[in-house]
């Protein structure tokens, strides 16, 4: 790197610096003062900006970082593959994941692995969203839910049950087999759009 050259003495002759007269704030005269009083007086009749929170809940911004959600494929299988990338990405060390192998009898997600234990500690989470960026299967996303206060530390460690998204129409509660003639790549590409009757093993 080049060295920064110092100023020579005559480069910055103080006498050459021009001093300009600037209008001083504060000399506003009587009307100026009256104006200030008018501002506060007229504000009395304006509508307050306050949102009466517990009664009125203003919607958040669309992409507000709220509570996490573990998503499902359209047939109900979990998207999480237990890769722990979210846990590795987390700067606050708030996520704990334990993966396990899928078997034919106990299939929670398409492919080889699924997240057996999934915990997010909301006492540590800073809602930065790096886990969402890290997730390779879009299993982990964030909702707009922000009312996360509670009265004990235990309650603020959310388990997999608390984080999993709901079963929507066409979904089946895992464990159940994959869609017939589809593999995990098909799932990944979104070619499975709903559960097949043959997947319903509990029927």
């Amino acid at each position: 790197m080049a060295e920064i050259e110092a100023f020579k003495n005559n480069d910055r002759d103080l006498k050459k610096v021009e001093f300009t007269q600037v209008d001083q704030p504060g000399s506003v005269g009587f009307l100026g003062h009256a104006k200030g009083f008018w501002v506060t007086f007229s504000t009395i009749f304006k509508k307050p900006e306050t949102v009466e929170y517990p009664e009125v809940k203003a919607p958040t911004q669309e992409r507000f970082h709220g509570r996490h959600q573990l998503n499902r494929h359209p047939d109900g299988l979990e998207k999480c593959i237990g890769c722990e990338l979210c846990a590795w990405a987390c700067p606050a060390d708030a996520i704990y994941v334990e993966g396990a192998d899928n078997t034919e009898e106990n299939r929670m997600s398409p492919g080889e692995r699924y997240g057996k234990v999934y915990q997010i500690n909301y006492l540590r989470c800073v809602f930065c969203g790096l886990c969402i960026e890290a997730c390779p299967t879009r299993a982990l996303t964030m909702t707009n839910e922000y009312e996360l206060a509670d009265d004990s530390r235990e309650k603020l460690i959310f388990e997999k049950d608390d984080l999993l998204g709901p079963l929507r129409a066409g979904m089946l509660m895992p464990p159940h087999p994959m869609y017939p003639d589809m593999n995990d790549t098909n799932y990944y590409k979104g070619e499975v759009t709903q559960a097949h009757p043959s997947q319903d093993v509990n029927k």
Partner: protein
Amino acid sequence: MKTAELIGNDPGWLITVKALLVFIFCVVLTLLSVWGERRLVGRMQQRPGPNRVGPFGLIQALADGVKLALKEDIIPAAADKVVFILAPIISATTCFMSFAVIPITGPVNLFGRQTAMQLTDLPIGVLYVLAIASVGVYGIILAGWSSGSTYPLLGGLRSSAQVISYEIAMGLSLVAVFIYAGSMSTSDIVAAQSNTWYAVVLFPSFVIYAISMVGETNRAPFDLAEAEGELVGGFHTEYSSLKFALFFLAEYVNIIAVSALATTLFLGGYHAPPFLGFTENWLGGWFTAIWFFSKVLVFFFVFVWLRGTLPRLRYDQFMQFGWKILIPVSIVWILVVATLRLLSLQSAPRIYVVGFASVVVLLVMLVNIGFDNAKNKKIKAIVDDSSAPSFAVPELPMNISSINVSAPKKGSDRG
């Protein structure tokens, strides 16, 4: 019949009832005014203010009071115990005492007796109020001193200096009223204003009183004694629980007391505004109390308005304003008023009065022009001198041979 004669015959029980009424009135009005102030300031800042406890948050102040009463009462180890306990008591008692001479209604019927809502009518009523207000300052100073801590001491010192400075201006502004009313009794002063309010006749006095009463009550923009940004809580930093509540109570009762005094001395007291004199007989004379309260509330609104609008003054500006402007102006004004009053009392020809007034106006204009010229000259002098700064300028760092940025030192921030 004069009020002094009217209430002079009050039996003991009636005086007790009146004292109780004054006390209840002060406390209730304090609770309401705390709420009112917070709501108003809130609206001025485009937020609703307290609105959760009771309808419209009306009993917020009561809830706060209960909360304060239930808090632990801490006395610091370094505090002077006796004085520390005495200070809030002084503050709270004196502020109530000034209400004794304030006439709240005209002649009314209370429990079958003809009387007026005024506890007592001293011939030197207004002086009594001033004296009581001065004693009340002891509460603040002693609280600051006895806390055994720096910020309260600073707050107490500031407030003593402040009240001394502004009490002079306040007293001087009242002199003109005394001269015109020919009495220091509050009820006589009210009676003397039955035609025109002194706020109109003695407008400069009214303005000076209005300014100094804000200084007297330690309210924004003159709240230097408890400047939150500079002195933590000021003189009551070390106070907690009920003792703090007493200071709080005292502050608001004081505001109402000075507003009531201003109403009495300048806004015609309990009399109805011009052209509404017929209302004074409504409700058997009790309607005058409504006029009195509405005038007090107007003052209270101005207090809140000031707080919502103006930033706190710097201490030296505040002192300069008091000593160099308010006091000289009041002295000159008193001279003018005294001369005019004397002329009219001696029934001097009208031409003299008008002539004197014109000379005064001319003099004021001349002084004003003189001040303006001096100011312009000063500004010009600054502009002419602007080619080079005359003040000391620190040397610029020009003699450094080289600054190496490529190899940061080991152990530095980025290393």
